[in-house]
């Protein structure tokens, strides 16, 4: 960052502790405050690392980075709404697992009794012939509808607990994480369900445009040199992100979300339908989790009760917060989340490419996230100083 003197910088009059705004040059400030800051950060990070990690700019790797982005982006989009309204949704992880089981139980084209016979759904929803909907026309659409409906129900329960019963979102959704996660595992007795129909799997990995970069006259094109760029997950994720972005930044509903996140009491007194909006936000979050579940289940080709468990939620919330959305509500944008997810996926990818041991990866990752969080604090301080 450059540090050239500009208007507003203090002349040296015994002022030994000038404000932050005065120390940073105007251009650096503008960069730091830009909506695209995290994108610039990601690009800078990418470019700086290319000389050290030659594989980084390799098209196969870029194709991987993109394909890892899409499902995370879908889930993080929902979380952005909840954080912006001043809440947090920890139950997203278990919604992913539960809806994945639903997809598997309804859509599986076959199933093995020796694996699933102990599961309570065996013989009721799923049998040797596959899931309840196996072979029906339009089965995958009914299956997806069932996933979304379940998610919407869970979201509504979360939202009502928070908005009407005034319970803290952290507690409500933590309980959700535990309960729905346990339900998913109980339903299949921790077993995974596969195979899923090919049309469903296409949603998770189907290519639309692939690229081959190499000699045309090779007798046999090595398949690993064919790179997919435009895929169904990309279309789904980008579509959801655009719709969410319009909803949050351009509609009356979006304005309500920001107002409640900024000051719930003031919003209530100003006639904002606070309860309805909060319930809707939690429903949106759960629906996004279910959409993410479709992509994850499809790419793993199975219904998995443990999907979304463990550190997954930290990836989601970490990516949203790194993007710049405030954990305290009132500030958030889908575009920021897109960049946050990009940064997060890029970070994981580069750490893998460095071939660090798995222990070091998590340590470095934590350090980089801390650094990004500090930049965010810096931004907040700048915003405060500028508005004084």
């Amino acid at each position: 960052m450059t540090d050239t003197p500009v208007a507003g910088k203090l002349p040296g009059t015994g002022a030994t502790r000038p404000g932050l705004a005065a120390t940073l040059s105007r251009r650096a400030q503008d960069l730091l405050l830009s909506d695209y800051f995290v994108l610039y950060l990601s690009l800078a990070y990418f470019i700086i690392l290319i000389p050290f990690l030659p594989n980084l700019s390799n098209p196969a790797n870029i194709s991987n980075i993109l394909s890892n982005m899409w499902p995370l982006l879908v889930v993080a989009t929902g979380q952005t709404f909840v954080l912006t309204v001043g809440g947090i949704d920890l139950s997203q992880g278990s919604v992913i697992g539960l809806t994945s089981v639903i997809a598997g139980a309804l859509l599986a084209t076959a199933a093995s009794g020796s694996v699933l016979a102990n599961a309570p759904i065996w013989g009721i929803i799923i049998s040797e012939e596959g899931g309840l909907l196996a072979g029906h026309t339009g089965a995958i659409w009914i299956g997806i509808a069932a996933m979304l409906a379940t998610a919407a129900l869970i979201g509504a329960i979360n939202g009502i607990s928070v908005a009407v019963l005034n319970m803290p979102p952290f507690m409500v959704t933590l309980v959700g994480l535990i309960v729905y996660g346990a339900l998913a595992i109980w339903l299949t007795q921790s077993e995974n369900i596969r195979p899923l129909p090919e049309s469903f799997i296409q949603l998770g990995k189907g290519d639309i445009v692939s690229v081959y970069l190499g000699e045309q006259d090779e007798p046999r094109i090595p398949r690993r040199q064919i790179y997919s760029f435009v895929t169904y997950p990309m279309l789904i994720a980008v579509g959801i992100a655009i719709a969410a972005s319009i909803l949050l930044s351009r509609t009356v509903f979006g304005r309500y979300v920001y107002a409640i996140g900024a000051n719930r009491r003031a919003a209530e007194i100003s006639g904002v339908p606070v309860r309805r909006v909060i319930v809707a936000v939690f429903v949106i979050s759960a629906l996004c989790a279910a959409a993410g579940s479709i992509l994850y289940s499809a790419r793993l080709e199975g219904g998995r009760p443990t999907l979304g468990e463990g550190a997954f939620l930290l990836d989601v919330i970490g990516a949203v917060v790194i993007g710049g959305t405030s954990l305290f509500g009132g500030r958030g944008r889908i575009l920021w989340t897109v960049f946050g997810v990009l940064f997060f996926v890029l970070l994981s990818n580069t750490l893998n490419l460095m071939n660090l041991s798995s222990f070091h990866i998590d340590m470095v990752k934590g350090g980089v996230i801390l650094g990004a969080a500090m930049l965010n604090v810096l931004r907040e301080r700048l915003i405060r100083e500028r508005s004084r």
Partner: protein
Amino acid sequence: MSHLLTLQDLSKAFFGVHAVQGVTLNIPEGAVTGLIGENGAGKSTLMNMIGGIHQPTSGSMYWRDTPYTPRDTAAATETGIAFIHQELNLFYNLTISENLFIDGFPKRLGLIDRKAIDSRTRELLKLLDLDLAPDTLLGELSPGERQLVEIAKALHREAELIIFDEPTTSLTPREIERLFEVIDRLRSNGKTVIFISHVLGDVERLCDHIAVMRDGQLVAEGPTSDFGIPEMIQAMIGRELSALFPDRTAQPGAEIVAEAINLTQPGVMKDVSFQIRSGEILGLFGLMGSGRSELARVLFGLDPVASGEIKLGGKPLSGGPQARIRAGLAFVTENRREEGLLMDAPISDNLSLVSISRFGRTPLNLVDRPGIAQATADISDQVTLKAGDISVQPAKALSGGNQQKVVIGKWLMEDPRLFILDEPTRGVDVGAKYEIYTLADRLAAEGGAVLIISSELEELMGMCDRIMVMNQGEIIDTFAEKPWSQKAILAAAFREVAA
């Protein structure tokens, strides 16, 4: 009289804009200096330079004739300067003595010396005539007592100069009296005081000297005997203010806009009934805890009421704020920071919040952004808002008076029939007060009804057609005849109501 602190041609600029410009001022030792000025006049910046929070862009300060250049607040404390802010820097979960000694507990044998702390605390509390045990939790004290603890903390640090910034805003009249006694005592003990306040009567009564700031400059200075309240106001706003209150432009009509019938909520209010007619400004006066703000919350559907009825335009009101706003109610809360504004959001978002659903356009309910920009700019003009780009500047960057105009302005698009203003001029300077009164008059003149709740009797007497007095949850008297009998109204407010 010698000077404790001297400011010499002091200036401070933010981004090239002068907040304080060329201020030269002597603070006499052992006296109370009043510092007055409208919000944004530069008082806070000046005090922040004295307190070491900001460093001057140019100019110099002298403490007892030696150069004084505080690098931070610790340096100011070290020198002997203490601040008593509106928001106190105390820990409510700790005891009085712990608060006093928070930055350095005396130790004996490596352990905190409780005995020494207790005896020192008792000594300080006695000095302030505060009859409390040193181990009382701060949270159990009244706002006035807390402020005295803050003063005790200043004395404990052996402050020579104590700066009071709007110390009376959250105090009851009795507590204000007590504070003034303490300040008198500080003066007689040789301490120097700077007293910043919007309540000019208090300044006149308490201060030996007065300094007036306007637009970052010192515009008047002298012994209090040179000033009367009109002179102070004139110096502050830079022009003559013919009166503190605008003339009323309309008389109350015959139509009853709103009516409360026997509102009762056990422990809060009892049999509260009143009517407001179109074009009328009705005042509600009462002490803190009399139930005046609770009544406003009940009217607006924020708090429950056990029995009774509220009618607007003859129709009974029910439901929460949303339904009541639709019916034609507007509510400016006394608590602008917590309930009135989205402090971090742009001014235009605040102004459009109440009416945002009017700007939804089919099919997706997308907001009509040019429409909002137009409408909020109109409102901003109507309330004579002094702000930068309202689509960018956050509400918190506004002065108190302008913030209050935003809180009022956000209701104007709804054309409310009954406007409830709870403490509309708290923490607002003289010029902005006048503009807020003008707004209230306009709302009434356009056929609406206005209910002003206030603890400042002067403003109610200046603006209202009638004044109700609330005391322990009951409306015990209503005054309508002018000239007002201030004595009778206060007597009603202070009267001990038979249980």
